[in-house]
């Protein structure tokens, strides 16, 4: 091989390397240019400006509000989700009486936290916390941000720890998918974000605070009426059941625990009742959907020690 040919060999490689570098540098620009809606608005408003149709401040307010409209429940920060959840929780514990039993609540929290760690959303602004409600209704509710409530009536549908785990994992599923926040009417989210958008970092004055508080009240009522009266869509319930199956498997519980619990629930639910009878798809149809993911029912074999601690905590419930 002559020096000349070597030189040519190197030369073509240099070109290739430069081309490669060019592609690598261009790639992130290409990938990051995906915010179509905002980009279109920006182009539109700047066009309007350049031909003298809009003043600068008009153009600014258009792009600001379209930004807000393009947004949704996902734009609530975990901190805002937390404050929404606290008040939703407060409304729930004012409707139901909390079960004031430290030992049993401690068991539910230990089980619940273990499950939450295995979910796709293990961390929320102020973490997960669980509380038993002293009610015969068959119910379990999740407030945004990680406050989960379960009635004694629901616990009575659980014949082992795997079944209790299934109920809690289903509620964690609702939190993971932010189903609560999605119950807030879109118009409220838009108005909240517009108030924030116009006010920016300034401290809120009387009028804005009053407007924001009434939007907050409306949002709380959207969520609580969904939780207590209307129920989520069938699709949301299916999502929560699928999440529950995943969480149970990750921790080592048998997802058939969910099927067991639903079978007991089916026998106990009273048609027209104020609880799961009103807000959830029938246990039968949920079992059919769950079995698409876990296959045919197999009896749960809970270890003796696990069953013993379940009975110790909830045996007299």
């Amino acid at each position, binding site marked *: 091989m002559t020096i000349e040919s070597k030189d040519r060999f190197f030369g073509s490689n240099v070109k290739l390397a430069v081309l490669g570098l060019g592609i690598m540098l261009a790639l992130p620009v290409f990938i990051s240019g995906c915010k179509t809606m905002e980009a279109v608005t920006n182009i539109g408003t700047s066009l309007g400006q350049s031909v003298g149709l809009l003043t600068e401040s008009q153009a600014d307010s258009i792009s600001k509000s379209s930004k807000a409209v393009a947004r949704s429940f996902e734009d609530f920060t975990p901190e805002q989700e937390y*404050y929404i959840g606290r008040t939703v929780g407060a409304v729930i514990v*004012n409707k139901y009486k909390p079960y004031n039993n430290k030992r049993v609540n401690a068991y539910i929290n230990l089980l619940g936290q273990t499950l939450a760690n295995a979910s796709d959303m293990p961390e929320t*602004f102020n973490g997960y916390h669980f509380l038993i409600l002293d009610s015969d209704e068959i119910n379990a509710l999740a407030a945004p941000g990680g406050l989960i409530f379960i009635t004694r009536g629901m616990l009575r549908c659980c014949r082992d720890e795997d079944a209790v785990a299934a109920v809690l994992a289903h509620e964690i599923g609702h939190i993971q998918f932010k189903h609560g926040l999605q119950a807030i009417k879109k118009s409220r989210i838009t108005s909240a974000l517009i108030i924030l958008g116009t006010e920016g970092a300034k401290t*809120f004055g009387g009028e804005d605070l009053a407007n924001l508080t009434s939007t907050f009240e409306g949002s709380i009522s959207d969520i609580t009426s969904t939780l207590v009266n209307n129920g989520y869509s069938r699709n949301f319930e299916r999502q929560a059941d699928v999440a529950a199956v995943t969480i149970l498997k990750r921790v080592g519980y048998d997802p058939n625990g969910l099927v067991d619990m639903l079978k007991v629930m089916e026998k106990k639910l009273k048609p027209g009742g104020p609880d799961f009878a009103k807000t959830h798809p029938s246990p039968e149809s949920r079992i059919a959907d769950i079995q698409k993911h876990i296959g045919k029912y197999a009896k749960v074999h809970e270890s003796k020690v696990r069953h013993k601690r379940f009975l110790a905590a909830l045996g007299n419930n």
Partner: protein
Amino acid sequence: MIKFKTSLIIFLLISLNGFPVFAAGQKMMSIQVKKGEIRSTPSFLGNIVARLSYGDRVYVREEKGPWVRVGLPGNSHEGWIHTSVLTSKKIVFKSGAKNVQTSASSDELALAGKGFSKQVENEFKEKNPKINYAWIDRMEKFVVSEKQIKQFLKEGELSPEGGF
């Protein structure tokens, strides 16, 4: 000439290899929850090596499933944190800060304590005095430690799989 081209190739190869590492090393994210715990391994059962607060910034070093290996600015601590703790936004606390002209609808900034906040909750409480938050405050004090979880798993003969 050959020497020059060879060194150019070496330079380009180093840049090509070095570029993504450099970019990843510089990526910063913020803690979006009250308390963020950095662990020795990518698992909730890993030991806590550092505790961070809302708004603290971390360098992103590596991602492994839902876990992110992060470095802390100003010291050599490194560890793993779950992705649900992190946001790419910068969290701004002080009102009237100069860089907060773009408001809460910005892609880069999130305003702490704004929107549905403590201030709004207090306003709501005033309007709805019958709604009692005492049990919610109590509930938030129910805290479970890693040690308790480890024991709970062991005693219950539960063996969690990956992702825990």
